[in-house]
């Protein structure tokens, strides 16, 4: 065993490499580790594992981690930790360590490699081809290992075989449906206090097992009495293990307070280390057997039928003596009180099986009066429990007392702690019962017992037992608390693995993306897509850039990358009929080579996507969708084809990424189109609006569509994605003489909003019918389509629905913030509050109108045209006139050039 140096609260100490930090703290005589969260009482090491409620520390070295039990930190050279009182600090700088995740399907998963888990492995080894056995400690053997007992070789031999994966320092944090377990493996903190490069600090295991064996063991629990929280008061198994296995020394005089025979076993272990065990206080009236005989032989005094009734402390707050009095199992004290001087009080309050994983599946542990524990006895098929968690305790011992502690009144109640981490005490429990609460779930929330970092591992059963006593029920009638994953605190980085930063979500870019980056266009996120927002000239701000871009589109010619629109190739003889049912308007009558704008609704009649669809051939359509809605629309089409209309011979394929689309927009677009494609007759007569032509554009075969999302004369050039960059560059080199200008999504928005074109998802939120959007013209009266029947519902024919209108602020430079409430024409903020009649959906400055404007959804808005409304913004009111949603070129004079 080698000695290492570590730092606790800025002071350097020494300890043994690999021992728990809690042992090293005790070895250095640090009994007071921290103050409690709420009452600021001194607290010290209490447990041995994840049950630890007191000795939580912040790891400062390496990756840094807030709130880690000192019992679960293995000592390494250079470890730096600091104490904390209930609240840790999240590290400020990004964690440079690596985290991984892995996925496994196995025949058998054994959770816990203590004796029970190892026995299960031996029994099941031949029956299963692939096995994972995981355990949260550094070594197998669990409880036996802590007792320094040797594990028989026959239980170990299968561990190192090819079909067994043995995972130590690995904690199963969740058990989910169909035997799905998530476990976190700690791989490097025990090797180095620093981050090890290119090595995963933690690995999250996602395991699906045909069968699961829970061998999770049990935790010792506390006993409640006044001042039961002082440093030096510990669980007896923890105290004995620190003294016996880790040889921490530290304590001189020990008293054991027990409800079961574990206290006797631990008293013997403690006595053997040289710490004097002055007495065993046993709540039970009569005990016998070999353990008791051994204790007597060692000359340890046994005080039966008695209870610790209080403790004293030294100046540091650590225990200095205790008081003992006769008591029955209900905590009724009588007789004389004796004081015993001690610096260690080892508590053996009985064993609480670690049932958490099973309870995540809503399995209720069952109370057993003989073992004084809630055990896993009823489990679904393919999950089994073995060992302590099942209630299989050592049967050779005397049964434990069903005793959880004293329930004092007055001042004593305030210092009789049930949940050490929450500082929750008997007074809290009494108040909960006094308030009429009898359900353990209510009591938990009222008192906060069991809700802290340790999730009440040492206090859960104690709370149930004391509550049962207070309301005159049996513990089994009170029932258990609901645990929820994760079983221990887990860093988010362990769950995220490598899916961080740019890998956290896919990024979709068009074939023109690098050109946009070269042009220094800021990007806007549209779903997963990156789209150029605007194209600033040097030193130009967004406002000025957008005005310049709008002006180019309205006066000369401008180009945008429209490649992100969703594209779905719809093929098959019934494609036309299919689209008639999907869209509110007709598509079966569309001529080959023509395009039509379509709107689709859900069965509830609410608009959910729109776009232009082109008939490529008699049996083939190319649908475009909104950029963000493409996947949803494809799902929708396939759902109807598969589940309602399998008789339709139609197939849908996403082709979004296959085509690049460059739109050239503006009065000079025709001249530029002619120059780019000399063989194409671009006249309005030969190539009218909403038609398509195939021609070479800059020597590349292209489909050109006369589609306009700006109201201007426009051509959309569609080429295979490979040629996207080429076309964009040609548009700009050949367009120079026409003043070609690149524009981004912001200008696109301004141009479309001036024309009153909606954006599904901006002007809509899933509660608008086409009529609400002033689009009655697109709803066919001749045919049925999805959602049609809903337009005859009383709700959709209400006159007081939110309707799309335009808004013109009275002061024509006032810009309404998008999302603002629209209220009735009121003079003051006070008057306008809670009188809102709608909200602003889009708001821009328009160069063409030389003023600001907005689109808005307003209750019965169409009937309010010409009226004024108030828009409260901060502490001001902006007045605006309600107008028709189309504000520019109402007669569509511009679209043909």
């Amino acid at each position, binding site marked *: 065993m080698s000695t290492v140096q570590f730092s606790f609260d800025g002071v350097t100490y020494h300890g043994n490499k690999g021992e728990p930090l809690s042992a090293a703290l005790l070895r250095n005589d640090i009994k007071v580790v921290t103050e409690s969260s709420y009452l600021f009482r001194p607290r010290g090491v209490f447990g041995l594992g994840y049950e630890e409620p007191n000795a939580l520390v912040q790891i400062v070295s390496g990756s840094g981690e807030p709130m880690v039990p000192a019992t679960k930190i293995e000592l390494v050279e250079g470890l730096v930790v600091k104490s904390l009182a209930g609240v840790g600090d999240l590290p400020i700088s990004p964690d440079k360590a690596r985290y991984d995740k892995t996925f496994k399907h196995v025949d058998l998963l054994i959770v816990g490699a203590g004796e029970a888990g190892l026995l299960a492995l031996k029994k099941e080894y031949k029956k299963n081809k692939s096995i994972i056995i995981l355990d949260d400690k550094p070594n197998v053997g669990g409880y036996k290992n802590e007792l320094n007992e040797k594990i028989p070789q026959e239980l170990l031999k299968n561990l190192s075989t090819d079909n067994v994966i043995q995972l130590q320092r690995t904690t199963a944090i969740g058990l989910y449906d169909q035997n799905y377990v998530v476990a976190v493996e700690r791989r490097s903190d025990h090797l180095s206090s620093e981050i090890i490069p290119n090595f995963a600090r933690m690995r999250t295991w996602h395991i699906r097992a045909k069968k699961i064996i829970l061998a999770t063991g049990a935790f010792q629990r506390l006993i409640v009495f006044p001042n039961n929280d002082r440093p030096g008061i510990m669980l007896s198994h923890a105290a004995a293990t620190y003294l016996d296995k880790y040889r921490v020394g530290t304590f001189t005089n020990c008293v054991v307070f027990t409800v079961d025979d574990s206290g006797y076993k631990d008293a013997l272990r403690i006595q053997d280390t040289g710490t004097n065990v002055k007495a065993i206080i046993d709540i039970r009236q009569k005990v016998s057997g070999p353990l008791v005989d051994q204790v007597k032989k060692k000359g340890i005094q046994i005080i039966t039928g008695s209870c610790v009734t209080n403790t004293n402390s030294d100046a540091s707050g650590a225990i200095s003596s205790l008081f003992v009095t006769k008591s029955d199992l209900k905590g009724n004290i009588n007789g004389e009180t004796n004081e015993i001087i001690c610096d260690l009080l080892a508590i053996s309050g009985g064993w609480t099986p670690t049932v958490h994983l099973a309870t995540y599946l809503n399995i209720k542990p069952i109370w057993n009066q003989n073992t004084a524990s809630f055990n896993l006895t009823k489990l679904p098929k393919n999950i089994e429990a073995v060992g302590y968690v099942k209630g299989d305790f050592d049967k050779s011992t005397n049964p434990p007392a069903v005793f959880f502690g004293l329930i004092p009144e007055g001042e004593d109640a305030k210092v009789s702690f049930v949940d050490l981490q929450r500082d929750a005490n008997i007074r809290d429990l009494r108040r909960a019962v006094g308030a009429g609460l009898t359900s353990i779930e209510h009591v938990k929330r009222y008192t906060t017992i069991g809700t802290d970092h340790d999730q009440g591992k040492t206090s859960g059963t104690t709370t149930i037992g004391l509550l049962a006593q207070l309301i005159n029920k049996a513990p089994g009638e009170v029932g258990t608390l609901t645990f929820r994953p994760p079983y221990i605190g887990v860093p988010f980085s362990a769950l995220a693995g490598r899916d961080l930063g740019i890998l956290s979500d896919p990024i979709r870019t068009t074939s023109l993306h690098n050109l946009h980056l070269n042009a220094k266009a800021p990007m806007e996120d549209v779903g997963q897509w990156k789209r150029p927002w605007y194209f600033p000239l040097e030193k130009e701000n967004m406002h000025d850039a957008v005005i310049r871009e709008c002006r180019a589109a309205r006066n000369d010619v401008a180009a945008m990358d429209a490649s992100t629109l969703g594209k779905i190739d719809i093929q098959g003889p019934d494609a036309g009929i299919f689209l008639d049912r999907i869209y509110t308007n007709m598509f079966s009558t569309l001529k080959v080579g023509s395009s039509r704008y379509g709107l689709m609704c859900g069965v509830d009649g609410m608009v959910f996507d729109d776009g232009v669809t082109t008939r490529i051939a008699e049996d083939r359509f190319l649908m475009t969708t909104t950029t963000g809605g493409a996947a949803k629309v494809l799902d929708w089409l396939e759902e109807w084809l*598969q589940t309602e209309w399998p008789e339709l011979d139609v197939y849908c394929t996403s082709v979004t990424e296959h085509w690049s689309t460059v739109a050239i927009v503006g009065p000079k677009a025709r001249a530029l189109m002619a120059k780019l494609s000399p063989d194409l007759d671009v006249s309005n007569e030969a190539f009218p609006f909403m038609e398509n032509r195939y021609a070479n554009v800059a020597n590349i075969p292209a489909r050109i569509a006369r589609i306009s999302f700006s109201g201007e004369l426009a051509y959309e050039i569609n080429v295979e994605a490979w040629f996207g960059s080429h076309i964009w560059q040609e548009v700009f080199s050949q367009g120079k003489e026409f003043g070609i200008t690149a524009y981004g999504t912001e200008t696109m928005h301004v141009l479309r909003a001036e024309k009153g074109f909606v954006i599904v998802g901006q002007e809509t939120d899933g509660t608008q019918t086409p009529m609400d959007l002033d689009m009655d013209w697109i709803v066919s009266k001749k045919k*049925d389509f999805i959602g049609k029947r809903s337009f005859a519902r009383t709700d959709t024919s209400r006159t007081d629905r939110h309707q799309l209108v335009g808004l013109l602020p009275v002061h024509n430079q006032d810009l309404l913030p998008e999302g603002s409430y629209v209220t009735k024409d009121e003079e003051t903020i006070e008057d306008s509050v809670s009188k809102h009649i709608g909200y602003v959906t889009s708001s821009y400055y328009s160069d063409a109108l030389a003023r600001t404007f907005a689109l808005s959804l307003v209750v019965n808005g169409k009937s309010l045209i010409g009226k004024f409304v108030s828009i409260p913004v901060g502490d001001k009111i902006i007045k605006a006139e309600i107008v028709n949603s189309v504000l520019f070129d109402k007669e569509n004079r511009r679209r043909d050039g």
Partner: protein
Amino acid sequence: MLLINCPWCGPRDETEFHYGSEAHIAYPEKPEELNDEQWAEYIFIRNNPKGWYAERWVHTASCRRWFNVWRNTINHEFGPSYKPFTKQPSRPK
């Protein structure tokens, strides 16, 4: 995470699927002949039983096909999966 049996692909993790609510609710043949209540029943009203439930899933991240499956809403146990327009297996016990 549920393990769902796609009748075409076999058992796969829940993240590959999308949920489709109650199975066997057909689009009405003549919506225009339904009164508001009947139409609302079709759009909005679904059973929510405690126990076995025949529901729809779609294997979005793989074969993209819809299917039906029995699932127990109490403990998420799955019964048989079956393809659309095939005979519904009897309710599991």
